[in-house]
């Protein structure tokens, strides 16, 4: 087995543990401490922001423009509209940047 497959298997085991873990562990606690809850609530936004950060550094103005439009769209619309709007903006701005 290669490293990619092993990595996928480990990621799958870790994910399954999160899905079983709430039932097996967290449900036995009547209350979760407020600071633990604050940490748990912050996890997805913190991780995803960190992952997207290099795009802010490396992106040119077409890329940053597309991210801005996507962020604005997500205030008003669902995931799919946001995504298509961001992608279309990116293609448009890159075409304009290429023509300049």
């Amino acid at each position, binding site marked *: 087995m290669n490293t990619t497959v092993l990595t996928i298997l480990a990621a799958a085991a870790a994910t399954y543990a999160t899905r079983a873990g709430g*039932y097996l562990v967290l449900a036995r606690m009547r209350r979760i401490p407020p600071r633990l809850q604050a940490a748990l*609530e912050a996890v997805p936004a913190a991780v995803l922001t*960190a992952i997207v950060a290099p795009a802010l550094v490396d992106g040119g103005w077409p890329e940053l423009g597309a991210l801005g439009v996507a962020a604005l769209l997500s205030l008003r619309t669902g995931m799919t509209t946001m995504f298509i709007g961001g992608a279309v903006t990116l293609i448009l701005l890159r075409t304009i940047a290429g023509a300049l």
Partner: protein
Amino acid sequence: MVSDFRVGIRASVPVLVSALPFGLLFGALAADNGLTTAEAVLFSALVFAGASQMVGIELFGSHALPWLIVASVFAVNFRHVLYSAVLTPTFRQWSAWQRAVGFHLLTDPQFALAAKHGEAGKPVGFAWYLGMGAAIFVTWVSEAWIGAEFGKLIENPRALGIDFLLPIYFTGLVMSFRQRARWLPTVLVSGAAAVAAYLTVGSPWHVSAGAAAGIALAVLLPPPASTPLLQAEAAH
């Protein structure tokens, strides 16, 4: 039993439609980042959690160390702990093997609809849950396969903007959490820490540095009033 299974499948239709582009995109990006079709399908079938799969693909593409990929997938998927805890009254009614299957099918939409279906703490039947979960699972895994096969055919990913679709997708996900307490400070601090780490130590350390900074801030800020777990999640 059979009719509950059918009702579950029918309830999954809006989910299937809205997840479709992302299922295909995952396959195409997996191929673009060097995974084989079999690996993409394996990833979708075994991890079965869209956002974390996209994170995994992004990190595979930047040749991150395996432990960092696993840790990032785990971090993005950690929210399932809450879902699984909230659905405890349901899981308790099932047999051990039904629980084992049910855990694997516990995705964001599955949780949202199961929580709604079993309103007032009523347990959800396994047939309904399986109908919905199996429909989502089969289509999601097929989309990875189709997306990967088509992804190989795309000659110039940049012209179609494919190289930058993941940041757009992740931005949308970050925005989707904006109702949560302390969202803005968390995002600003993790973003600043990630940029700083990216410019100094370099990739892939920006992921752990940014995530750690954001989570640490959320812990250090004054805590909210303690709420019982089940109420807190039901309010979402």
